[in-house]
């Protein structure tokens, strides 16, 4: 490790505690919350804060399935293309709402996960995600009087300029649209072909209005009137401007958590974590004495470092994620237990303190490595196959275990080696071993074990 080791460990500790302090802003270099770095094309712009999942801060989550079976025949887009398109449309819709930190990601190639933190209104979330906003102008069907048919090709809302709401007679909200990109010519032509006849304006297959054409149009402009309120008109205008979803979506999973419940969960988790930490610390000191104290220092180091990492990466903490973190506190001392048990065995076998510490480290290492690998592998499988909750648990558990490996192998050992250099800390009873090794007559562990 060399002489730099202890300093490096100490610097990491200070940085970790600094990152852990809530509600402060580090400006690095200047004028930005958190860490901001710009070196050529490399740019870091990271606000430092604890990211809470929906179950801890409240909000709405939806999993949407693309109803590809409802697409008209002859659709040439692949599911993943449709998924990308649908996600872009939903993203535009969310952006115009101003939700902070929304999550939008593909699940498989036929599903989309949407998380809207702070959105408490399931109806609104459902509208954003599933209103297709597919506008089509239909014309009277000559073969079936009173019915309407699509033009060939259909005249849809695909080529519209941004729509806006105005008020007719100062009170009646209407949506103004304008065709562009060639569709404006078709719109003009339509007014000639169907002069004095009604045309049908449909949204998602339903009629909104069926005005009669009373004049020949000169450009692509038109209005939609349909008994709107000011709110519903502006919502529809917004949806039309974000574009139509390329495929109908259905909600296959939804969950909505109110912020008050989230706060309650955060408080309960904090209490549980603190009590768990305290119980483990108490036990370790009572059972292992001086090495126990060292283990507790290492455990605090571990907790500070892991939490700092969660804030920096950042890892979104869910209720299950917090459970994984608390569980990892219990597992983190595991490596210390293995080391200290070895240390005791070596001391009882009559080795000097210094030799025993070194032998304990070397002989406990393979067990520590394997057991940590096994846990990380579990987390990997859970992350791979799991959904939402399970993924959160797996991620925090894996990070926790990796950090505990670091603290057990590096920090505990450094502290232990440091402690035995201090004369007053060199008494054997501080390590839970009788002052003089008592021969019990049992076969020596060290002698009986093969490697």
């Amino acid at each position, binding site marked *: 490790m060399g002489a730099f080791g202890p300093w490096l460990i100490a610097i990491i500790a200070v940085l970790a505690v600094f990152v852990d302090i809530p509600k402060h802003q580090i400006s690095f270099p200047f004028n930005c919350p958190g860490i901001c770095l710009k070196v050529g094309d490399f740019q870091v712009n990271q606000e430092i804060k604890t990211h809470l999942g929906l179950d801890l801060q409240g909000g709405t989550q939806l999993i949407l399935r693309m109803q590809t079976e409802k697409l008209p025949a002859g659709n040439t887009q692949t599911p993943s293309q449709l998924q990308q398109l649908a996600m872009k449309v939903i993203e535009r819709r969310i952006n115009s709402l101003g939700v902070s930190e929304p999550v939008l990601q593909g699940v498989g190639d036929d599903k989309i996960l949407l998380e809207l933190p702070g959105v408490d209104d399931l109806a609104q979330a459902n509208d954003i995600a599933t209103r297709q906003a597919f506008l089509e102008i239909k014309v009277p069907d000559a073969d079936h009087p009173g019915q309407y048919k699509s033009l060939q090709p259909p005249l849809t809302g695909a080529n519209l300029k941004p729509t806006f709401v105005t008020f007719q007679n100062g009170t009646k909200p209407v949506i103004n649209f304008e065709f562009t990109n060639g569709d404006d010519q078709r719109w003009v032509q339509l007014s000639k072909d169907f002069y004095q006849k009604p045309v049908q304006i449909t949204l998602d297959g339903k009629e909104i209005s069926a005005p009669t054409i009373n004049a020949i149009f000169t450009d692509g402009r038109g209005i939609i009137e349909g008994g709107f309120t000011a709110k519903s008109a502006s919502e529809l205008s917004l949806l039309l401007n974000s574009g139509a979803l390329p495929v109908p979506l259905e909600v296959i999973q939804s969950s909505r958590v109110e912020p008050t419940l989230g706060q309650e969960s955060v408080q309960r988790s904090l209490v549980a974590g603190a009590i768990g930490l305290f*119980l*483990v610390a108490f036990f370790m000191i009572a059972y292992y004495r001086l090495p126990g104290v060292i283990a507790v220092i290492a455990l605090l180091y571990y907790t500070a470092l892991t939490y700092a990492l969660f804030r920096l990466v950042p890892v979104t903490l869910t209720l299950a994620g917090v459970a994984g973190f608390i569980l990892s506190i219990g597992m983190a001392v*595991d490596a210390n237990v293995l080391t200290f048990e070895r240390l005791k065995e070596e001391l009882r076998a009559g080795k000097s303190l210094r030799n025993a510490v070194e032998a304990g480290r070397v002989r406990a290492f393979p067990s520590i490595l394997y057991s940590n690998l096994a846990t990380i592998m579990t987390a990997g499988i859970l992350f791979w196959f799991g959904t939402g909750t399970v993924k959160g648990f797996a991620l925090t558990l894996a990070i926790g275990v990796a950090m505990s490996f670091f603290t057990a192998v590096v920090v505990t050992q450094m502290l232990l080696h440091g402690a035995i250099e201090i004369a007053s800390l060199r008494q054997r009873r501080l390590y839970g071993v009788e002052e003089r090794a008592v021969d019990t007559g049992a076969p020596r562990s060290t002698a009986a074990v093969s490697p």
Partner: protein
Amino acid sequence: MIGVVERKWWYFLLSGLLIVPGVIFLALGGLKPGIEFRGGTLLELRFGQPPAVSDVRDAMAALDRPEAVVQVAEGGRIEVRTFEMKPDDIVKAEKTLKDRYGANLIDLSSSVVSPSFSGELIQNAVRSIALASVLIVLLIAFAFRNFGWAAFRYGIAAIIALLHDAAVVLGIFAILGFFLGVEVDSLFVTAVLTIVVFDRIRENLRLNPGEALNPVINFSIMQTLARSVITSLTVVLTLLALLLFGGFSMRNFALALVIGIVSGTYSSIFNASQIVSLWQELEDKIRHRATAVA
């Protein structure tokens, strides 16, 4: 030193007493799948002063959901379970309940899983269990690769102990499901995988294989006993904190983990090694008989 090996039949009996009732309730269909695995709606209502269950049931019946199952849960909460509700229905139900209970209803959370999606979630759970099972066999084989026939014996014992733990956890949850309506969800599967399957690997990789195969098994057990018990104890301490003080929805998860760890520690000390020693005894007997006949 306790004669652990001499008393092996007692330990097998205790395991049997734990497992048999569980298996009976498993057979009776006690293990209740949660909405994640069967599809449906869960409404969680938190009250200042919880109303009577029948009152909430009436409210649901008025919403055309007479089939809704209403249960009291800890922390002034009432849980309502019913079939899948579409977002519009949920919005309507939430509004009706909020109007009915006013400020007494502190908060109301809802989750809905469509039955079509729950099939996929079950598939994922089954896949991860299958993959984990294959991995554990490979890992145990790897850990004991240098010990030949004896290692095979130890590997089988480890897998029997694993089945023992799985039976204990599943059995207890079947009993809880039968009497208290406790449901299992993907977090339960996670608990089983984390503890029952992988803690077993941890345990086995941690035991130095050389020690595990020590001919003087009793001594080897005592030597590893301290390590096994203490490492399990620290984890159980944190889990107890989670169980008693943590978020309500984590209760069953923490409980499954605690049962798994305690059972795992018990079975690795009192069962797995016993099986190895029993095997050895049987082998000796057969060999003895063979020589006697010859």
